[in-house]
């Protein structure tokens, strides 16, 4: 096959591209320039769109002896991922920009362009397994990224390759070293790539300005503090609430809900974070259609952790997920990914965007 390998400059995508080459495919490496201000050289482990990352990707392509290009997707990324991220926070939701990037950039704008140019597939360094369009969790449970790929449609999965999903991260690093890739011991990137400082609140504040509101007790309605904008809060958040006095019962308080129009942030005890029912919209089904109108599954409500056995019910508005055990801190704006448990690796059934919880 003709394979376009998306190369971020990290170790995972470099090894993935190498495996695609080994499998006998014709591989071309492409680094996506996503930052509209790429001037800064990366410091530490953060970011995925700096000049240094582009140079690392280029050197990996050299070692793999494949053609390499840098494509400018910065405008598209800003519009579909960064602006979406900011808008979601402004509306009191908690977005997942990596998921959005997979959905809108890597497996949409990039994949569409690759297919039009004559490629058969896009290859990435994601930790997930994709065999014949069946998407499973990665072998390395700590690194599994199937949650941020569950949004892919059947068509997208048919043209996606994740060559390292069957391998653990330490083994990937060892293989990179064996291949002579200098990124073998490059630190992992953990933060949001377009917020290299790691200070999400400052990033959002610079874009949204000050939108003052109140932090109120969810039970009594009493105002406990003022805040500069709902974008500083996420459901389940405990720190940075700005409340001076401890709660009457002495227990910590958490963000329970966010009302963007009034700017009200409701806080309360941990127990009030428990969610039994998750409503979600715009479902994407990996097989092209839901497994049934009502089916058993395992639900995952955030990128790391947040798992519970559940029953999903398909509705006109989307999907309602009844959890067998309560989950805490389920934030609207995040995705709920639904899996079918399987001894060979849980299989992704679909994903939808959380709109409400009970």
């Amino acid at each position, binding site marked *: 096959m*003709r394979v376009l390998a998306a190369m971020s400059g990290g170790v995972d995508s470099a090894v993935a591209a190498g495996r695609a080459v080994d499998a006998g495919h*014709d*591989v*071309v490496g492409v*680094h996506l*320039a996503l930052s509209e201000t*790429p001037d800064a050289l990366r410091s530490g482990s953060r970011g995925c769109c700096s*000049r240094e990352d*582009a140079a690392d990707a*280029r050197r990996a392509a050299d070692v793999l002896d*494949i*053609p390499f*290009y*840098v*494509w*400018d*997707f*910065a*405008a*598209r990324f800003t519009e579909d991922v960064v602006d979406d991220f900011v808008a979601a926070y402004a509306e009191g939701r908690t977005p997942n920009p990596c998921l959005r990037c997979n959905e809108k950039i890597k497996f949409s*704008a990039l994949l*569409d*362009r690759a297919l*039009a*140019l*004559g*490629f058969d597939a896009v290859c990435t360094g994601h930790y997930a397994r994709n065999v014949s369009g069946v998407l499973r969790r990665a072998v390395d449970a700590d690194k599994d990224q199937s949650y941020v790929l569950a949004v892919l449609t059947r068509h997208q999965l048919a043209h996606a390759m994740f060559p390292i999903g069957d391998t653990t991260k330490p083994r990937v690093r060892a293989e990179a070293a064996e291949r002579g890739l200098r990124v073998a011991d490059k630190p992992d990137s953990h933060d949001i790539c377009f917020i290299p400082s790691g200070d999400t609140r400052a990033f959002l504040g610079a874009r949204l300005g000050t939108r003052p509101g109140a932090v109120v007790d969810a039970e009594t309605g009493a105002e406990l503090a003022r805040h500069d904008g709902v974008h500083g809060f996420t459901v389940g958040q405990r720190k940075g609430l700005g409340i001076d006095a401890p709660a009457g019962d002495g227990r910590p308080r958490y963000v329970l809900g966010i009302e963007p129009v009034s700017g009200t942030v409701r806080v309360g005890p941990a127990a009030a974070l428990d969610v039994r029912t998750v409503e979600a919209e715009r479902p994407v089904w990996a097989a092209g259609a839901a497994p049934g109108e009502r089916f058993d599954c395992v639900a995952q409500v955030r990128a790391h952790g947040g798992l519970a056995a559940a029953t999903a019910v398909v509705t006109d508005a989307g999907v309602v997920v009844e959890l067998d055990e309560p989950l805490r801190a389920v934030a609207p704006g995040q995705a709920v990914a639904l899996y079918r448990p399987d001894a060979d690796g849980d299989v992704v059934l679909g994903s939808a965007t959380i709109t409400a919880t009970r």
Partner: protein
Amino acid sequence: MARQMTQADVTSPAKTTYLDHAATTPVLDEVVAAMADAMRRTGNASSLHTSGRRARRDVEEARERIAAAVGARPSEVVLTTGGTESDNLAVKGLYWARRAADRRRRRVLVSSIEHHAVLDAATWLSEHEDAEVELLGVDEVGRVTPASLRAALARDPASAALVSVMWANNEVGTVNPIRELAAVAHEFGVPLHTDAVQAVGVLPVDFTASGADALTLTGHKLGGPYGAGVLLLGRDIALTPLLHGGGQERDVRSGTLDTPSVVALAKAVEVAVADMPRRAAVLSGLRDDLVGKVLASVPDATLNGDPGTGVIDGGPSRLPGNAHLSFPGCEGDSLLMLLDAQGIECSTGSACTAGVAQPSHVLLAMGADEATARGSLRFSFGHTSTPADVDAVAAVIGQVVDRARRAGQHVPAGGR
């Protein structure tokens, strides 16, 4: 003959058709030989003993040969590491010297189609040295008119520090009327620098006759070595150095002279200039053939820049080897990759450090919209080009453009 694109067309070039001579052109065999020969000799041209004198002799003979080839005096040849250094030296050095003589001289007049070595040097002066950069506009073929320069100077002659206008544009190939522009600058007592890296060896370049006060040329665009260039600088022109040290090159450019590179550069300039009339005719023939065949395959493609039928300062009005074309609905990135996969090497314009193709500032200055600017390619011929190179492009351009156009529906910016 058009042929069907096959599986190998995306990824596996068979042989290379090199059509990016404006980026760099193969080093001439006799230049390699001269340079290798010189590299085997030891000697610092500033040393006083026999070996030093030998190196000095090599350098000075080279300087005389370069000067003779481009109509300059040997003392006007300042040896540098190439185009970027020469441009920076001219723009910053002239500005500082002119400003030191008269504090009112803050205006740096540069054309909007300059190479970044000039544009960014001027911008730096405005950000750090109190300069005021004025971009001279161009007409629709990318040419600076003497009238626009005169108007810009006449607005406030006392505040003008320098003028910099390139001899021929590296992207679209349009030649500027340097003699006229220099005459206009001199009417106001302002020095003119011209970046002639694309011109030497394919256009008649005579420094003295041009009237320019400073002129940039570089080796690797004309069959010479990389990292070797010249700033021709009129004898009476004051210029503040960028590099301080041993006082080489009239105190204008300190640094141990790179004798092998200088020897090689002189060889290349001599050969290129001597071969210029023949080479220009061959290159313009190939260029016209390519443009004709591309337009036949892709009727809505357009040639950017001057058509090349006029005469300016005794030479053609367009660089002989330059074909710069816009392909509506295509991304330059896509075209370049598809052609590269066919073994055809060309350019989307001037590459930037991160490797991201930016919409060309030259095309934008000529009035093109951003989508057009992004959907353009430069094919540039040089001394190794043959009709087979034209045929290779003609055989695939139609299908490449078709495919890029399909991919162009997934345009990352603008045009959506």
